[in-house]
């Protein structure tokens, strides 16, 4: 194992609250009678539905087709009848088409063949990654085949697997590393093969020592060419730019991608899903979700069929202990608040939080007092207060010059802001308005 490290600039330390679920083993949740499969579960263009009302589908069938370069295929996790194609609101505010499927008894996908990925051609693997609808499962849901296609003229030297899980509350990646460690490691090697990178690292924050030790023992036992990089606890270390700075010590230049410094980053959940996809030809139809928060009676980790309404997950936890103030899909720093418990679990739903009014207080916004905490917290070296002031008076050009497009909305600035300004919302507004100005 390598010496402990971290990224140098900014970052915050919210209470990690992982103790609620970090010892809870992953429990398989049965597929419900009705599942809702949105056609936009990834970053980029929504998939085109290729089924219609009344169609009969088999488990693992493709029901949505990627509609562009940055888009992903959608599969049905279970067999049944398409009972409706309707429009639903997603937690991120998108209004999108979704297929409602009435699941039959014979529902689940049979995994029969087991293939040896080592004999497969890298191009074939990339094609299958696309075909099986794999996307980044850390939250950003970037289509994996695009990420793992190294552009011409670029060379991948490192694969860095992201086992940081820096979002408070979430423990799904932690549990995957503990319970599916070997699949994660093999998935990492499949990625290395796809992109042709000689070095593979796994970055893990040191609040998950058990996962580090477990993976280390697997690496030794199976003689795998993978190194573990322990990381000091700090949010947002799971962002690929911060992770690369911490693991390989290089900064991704502003406006560039990790591949520009020879690196490919992937989340542990993605690596594990990718392993199952390539070895068993299994599309991305289920994922591990942490259901937690002080309003949940019995928090836990669940292996959930995609399309399962979040209400089912809450029922599996014994319901609410008290009335939640806020429901969040994802982690508390970058996740989205939602209001409809019938919202389905999607490829990027790493967690469901039911927060009490104590955990997520209703705050009063005051004037900016120029305390500089946001400047100190910004991992990208931006000045959120200055950006926000420019954006709020419509000065978008100035804010672009101050590096607005480097902002990835990690939320450090708004987290520390004593004036409780909606800084992240301001950055989003600024980006959208600048984009409109260009047109």
């Amino acid at each position, binding site marked *: 194992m390598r010496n402990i490290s971290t990224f140098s600039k900014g970052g915050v330390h919210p209470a990690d609250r992982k103790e609620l679920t970090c010892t809870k083993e992953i429990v398989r949740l049965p597929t419900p009678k009705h599942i809702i499969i949105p056609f936009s579960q990834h970053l980029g263009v929504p998939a085109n539905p290729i089924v219609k009302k009344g169609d009969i589908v088999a488990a693992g069938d493709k029901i949505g087709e990627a509609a562009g370069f940055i888009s992903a295929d959608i599969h049905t996790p279970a067999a049944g009848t398409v009972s409706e194609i309707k429009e639903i609101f997603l937690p991120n505010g998108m209004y999108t088409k979704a297929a409602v499927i009435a699941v039959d008894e014979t529902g689940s996908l049979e995994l029969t063949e087991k293939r040896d990925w080592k004999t497969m051609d890298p191009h074939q693997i990339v094609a299958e990654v696309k075909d099986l609808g794999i996307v980044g499962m850390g939250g950003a849901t970037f289509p994996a085949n695009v990420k793992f296609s190294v552009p011409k003229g670029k060379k991948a030297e490192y694969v860095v697997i992201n086992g940081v899980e820096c979002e408070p509350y979430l423990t799904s990646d932690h549990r995957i590393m503990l319970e599916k460690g070997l699949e994660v490691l093999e998935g990492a090697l499949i990625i290395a093969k796809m992109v042709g990178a000689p070095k593979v690292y796994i970055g893990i924050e040191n609040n998950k020592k058990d996962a580090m030790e477990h993976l280390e023992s697997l690496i030794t036992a199976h003689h795998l060419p993978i190194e573990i990089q322990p990381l000091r606890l700090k949010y947002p270390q799971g962002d690929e730019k911060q992770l690369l700075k911490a693991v390989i010590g290089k900064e991704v230049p502003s406006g560039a991608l990790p591949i520009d410094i020879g690196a490919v980053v992937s989340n542990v959940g993605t690596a594990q899903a990718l392993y199952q996809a390539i070895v068993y030809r299994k599309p991305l139809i289920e994922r591990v979700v942490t259901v937690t928060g002080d309003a949940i009676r019995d928090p836990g980790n669940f292996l959930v069929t995609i399309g399962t309404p979040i209400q089912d997950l809450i029922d599996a936890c014994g319901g609410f202990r008290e009335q939640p103030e806020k429901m969040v899909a994802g982690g508390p720093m970058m996740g989205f608040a939602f209001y409809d418990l019938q919202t389905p679990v999607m490829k990027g739903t790493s967690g469901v939080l039911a927060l009490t009014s104590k955990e997520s207080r*209703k*705050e009063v916004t005051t004037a*900016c*007092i120029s*305390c*500089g905490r946001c400047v100190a917290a910004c991992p990208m070296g931006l000045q959120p207060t200055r950006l926000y002031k420019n954006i709020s008076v419509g000065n978008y050009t100035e804010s672009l010059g101050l590096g607005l497009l480097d902002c990835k909305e990690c939320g450090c600035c708004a*987290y520390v802001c004593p004036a409780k300004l909606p800084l992240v919302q301001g950055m989003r507004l600024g980006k959208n308005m600048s984009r409109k100005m260009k047109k």
Partner: protein
Amino acid sequence: MSEENIMYRIESSPQIRHADSTARIMWSVVLALLPAGIWSVVNFGPYVLAVIAVSVITAVVLEYLLARLMGRSTIQDGSAVLTGLLIAYNMPPGVGLFIPIIASAFAIAVVKWSFGGLGANWINPALAGRVFVFFSWTGAMTTWKAPRFWSAVDTTSGATVLSTVKTSLLDAEGIISGPAGLLGDLGYQSTAFARQAASWFSDTLNIGVSPIHIDLFIGTVPGSLGEVSALLLILGGIYLAAKHIITWHTPISYILSFSLLIWIFGGVQYGTGLFSGDVLFHLFSGGMMLGALFMATDMVTSPTTYAGMIIFGIFTGFLTFLFRIYGSLPEGVSLAIIIMNIFVPMIDRYIQPRRFGVVKQRSQA
């Protein structure tokens, strides 16, 4: 989606926030200032309570009215209470009550609200209020009350040690062993406790401090009502630093640059040459601790970057040194901080953080 489902709060990320709020910061600073206020009541008598009360009440009432006028409500953020309190702390203990009222009114109405209220003012309101009344009623603002623990005969018109030193130096001849020595020559009376403590220091620990240092440190000297006890102010400062409300950058760079300059040049006037200045005397006297820990650290009127704060601190230290040693007034803290407040927008323009992944940064001016 049924009606009963729509009961959860929808907000942009992040969904959780740090516990510190503007109000919490302001009230913590007020709390950190309280020991020094209690000491002033003990030291100078119950009249100072009236000074504190009128300053705070004037500030809060005006804050309320002006915020109302702008259609806002801001008194719960605690900033007006803090401004009022700081104004009171900068008043001589026996000052006529109309002076703190005018100082508070000037601070809140002119310095703070004519620019748009909290966060929009570009100099520290409390300091501006103090400086305004200082130059308007200089006599009343430099009439000091002797502290209770003094055995000296004259208990109504004690001068501060800094002003005594300043005026006496004009007539002084030959080599004098620093400000403490000068005060000793003038027959300045230290408290019995300070004399005992000083001899304990020299006998037991072999550290040579004069009783005057002890008096200054504890606060048994004449002076503005909240500034005299360096000890209690430092404790307040440590509390704020421990709660991460202030960072070390401004106060430490301020104190270090001031101390260094005093050490190098502070002895020249006494005929003891370079590198012989009495650093402790200057650190613990006048408004230095109140200024460095509670005024220069005012978030609104100090830079937003750590590097900027250090530059701000260094120059404030330099100006304080200039005003104290070479100026015609005995004190320099208020003016030094106010002048540096004016430079803050410039510091913030030129001192910007290095952006992640940007190697060469051109100035964004």
